[in-house]
């Protein structure tokens, strides 16, 4: 790890009201500039809760979350200005057209007219949405909504790009383009933090991964580092994931 810290979680915990156990328990991790970080875990492990706390949709009960040095709890506006976020199910304003939605996002993130024209043009071309951008979002397929949400999240060239299950709904071509785009985004000194269940993608794409189970971070590092720690050089990320999470559940 060499770049500046763009995302840092220190002792973050969250228990839902009425919940019997913490959804996220004393989670600490750091993501640096230039890194693609994969956040892995079984269903209900706490991935989405963690992401929602980072983007300000949920409040952490304890701990600190810093986005590019801004405390999400104390300075949410500055923190959010550095984030581009796409949720797991990108429900957008169905009665707006694509361009109306993108203009709203650009206005709020303060993207200048010239800059938005350039960025929107590039992104729409990449996701092949140009011909649909004047249509009402209600008429989009799931994949098109996903692409529009990604376009909106990338409009302001965010330092920290956060995605919850980004590959769901993307066709193979868009998925490939998107993965290339994630890499080029990090090459500019930004960072990508995403959750996924597709372990092959994580293994191929991520500089580092974190595995969370029952709210606790049970492993963190590059896939190579994880293999070395377990002294099993021929293991795939899937093998590591299954063994670690099953062991955690057995406890």
């Amino acid at each position, binding site marked *: 790890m060499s770049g500046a810290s763009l995302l840092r979680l220190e002792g973050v915990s969250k228990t839902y*009201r*009425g919940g019997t156990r913490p959804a996220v328990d004393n989670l600490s991790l750091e993501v640096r500039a230039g890194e693609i970080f994969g956040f892995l875990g079984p269903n209900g492990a706490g991935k989405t809760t963690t992401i*929602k706390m980072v*983007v*300000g*949709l*949920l*409040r952490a009960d304890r701990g600190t979350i810093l986005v590019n040095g801004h405390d999400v*709890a104390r300075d*949410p*506006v*500055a*923190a*959010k*200005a550095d*984030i581009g*976020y796409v*949720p797991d199910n990108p*429900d*957008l*304003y169905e*009665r*707006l*057209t*694509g*361009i*109306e939605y993108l*203009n*709203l*996002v*650009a*206005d*709020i*993130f*303060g993207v*200048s*007219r010239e800059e*938005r*024209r350039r960025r*929107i043009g590039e992104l729409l071309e990449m996701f092949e949405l*140009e*011909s*649909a*951008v*004047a*249509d*009402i979002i*209600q*008429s*989009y397929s799931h994949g098109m909504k996903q692409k529009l949400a990604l376009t909106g999240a990338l409009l302001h060239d965010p330092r920290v790009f956060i995605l919850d299950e980004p590959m769901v709904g993307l066709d193979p071509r868009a998925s490939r383009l998107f993965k290339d785009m994630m890499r080029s985004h990090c090459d500019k000194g930004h960072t990508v933090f995403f959750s996924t269940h597709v372990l092959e993608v994580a293994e191929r794409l991520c500089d580092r991964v974190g595995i969370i189970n029952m709210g606790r971070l049970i492993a963190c590092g590059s896939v190579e580092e994880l293999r070395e720690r377990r002294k099993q050089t021929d293991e795939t990320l899937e093998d590591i994931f299954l063994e670690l999470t099953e062991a955690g559940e057995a406890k």
Partner: protein
Amino acid sequence: MARRVLSLILAQLNMNFAISHSRYYYLKKRQRLWEPVLIVLGVGGAAASLAVGIYTAASYYYSTAAAIGQEAVTLTLGILLSQVLVMILGFVLVIAVFYFSNDLAILIPLPLRPAEVLAGKFAVILASEYVGLVVFVLPVIIAYGVRADVSAVPYVLSSILVFLALPVVPLVLAAIPAILLMRVAGLSRRKDTLAMIGGFLFIGVIVVFQFFVQTKAPGVGEEAEFLAKMLATANSLVYIVGARLPPSIWATKALALAGTWQGLWNLGIFLVAGVLGFVVLLVIGDRVFYQGVLSGFEAGARKGAARRAGKAKAAGYVSRSPIASLAIIEMKLFTRTPVFVLNGFTGFVMFPVMFVAMFLMRGNPEMARLWDVLLAVPAFDAIGALVIAAYFFVLAAMSSIPFTAFSREGRRNIWIPRSFPASAKTIALGKAVGAEIMVALGAIPGIAVLGYVARLPLASVAVGVVFGVMSSFVLNLCGVLFDMWRPMLNWTDQQKAVKSNLNVVVGMLMGVAVLAVLGLAVNFLINLGLPAWGVVAGVGGVLAALLAALVALLGAVADRLWSGLEA
């Protein structure tokens, strides 16, 4: 078939009244237990006091009517008014629940006939109407039963049956044009616009009908004289009403003559009318219901295809301030959602229609007298300015727009504004400005009619508009702040976000509170001996102070409320 329809109805009722949801959170998880307590105490208390008020009024009315042997008119009026109310609200509810429910995409692929799905949806609306009728019509039936010389057992049995059948006919009368309208609208690419226009036309027709019926009653005069005249012509009123809504007469006779063959006959006709109406609705619905729903699913795709065929260059890049951008999006989202428009803009349409009807009836001697009295009021131009300001305020209170500003986002979309790097104050102001523009534009037709009819000088109208914008913005800010604090995000269809939202009731109560403050201010200023325009200026000062206080409050609490909203 009966079993699966019953199962569908039970599931629909469960979702509509959040029965399993409440059981899970309140009984199993024991979360936010203060909510049901508050609802029972607040809404239950308000409903109970309203019911007691209606009971008392009905008893008083009965006493006066009984003096000239016209006591049954108590029942007729109660039943008629409730049926007109059911018809107006029912039309909007039918469009919302039949055509804009989130679960239609789940229900349509099921092996159910359109009539079965329609029956399930109809049951939901019927159940919602019963809740209102318990407060509005049950006290009238009880008051009559207590006061009149009726046999207890037949009266109670007839009352139960009449109560259960009461909303069926008006709902059928609202539902049939609604599903036909949606079928026709579905043929057009502008389906939503047509649905909204059709909805307002229906409401306008009902308002004019109601106004026409009311103006057949005797005019304003001394209370006793008025009542005597009213009761003396009660039969003609009943006749007019009966000619248009005979079920209200059958229901009246079923109750007033309970225990007699005539009562039983009328009860039979009333129940058969309900059943027949429902069957007719199912038969029509089975043929056209799905066509209207499915055309809704297709509309977006067709439009998309047309655009993709070569009209995509319309996309524009427009740069605005965050508040302006949020306000414009708030307006677009509201005005493009028929359910929101039909609920929120009803006042914008209803009042001008009423004003025009009043103007057209000026030839009527009683109405002419009323106009003469109004126009002879001293300092009418200054009072007119205040009336216009109050009109804005009432529209804002009735519109539900500010008090559902965040609720309308729902669980699905609230992540969008929550992830914006904008202060809570900016987001709240954007929503409040959007609401204000809608209210101000919605007020224009009514003000134009009022200004013309009352021959108000332009200065009065201008001052009224300025104060109106200030007064409605006070309420809009209150509403947005309150909804930011306690938004109702868990809804299954858009109708619930605006209709079953307690924040709307709170909004009306806040409206009453602000009006009380303004009323006290006016009273104080008059007692100071200020001239009429001095009082108006004083009201402007109070409004400016209220606005300043609210903006300060927004700055002080909005960030805390916004960060506390977990999604």
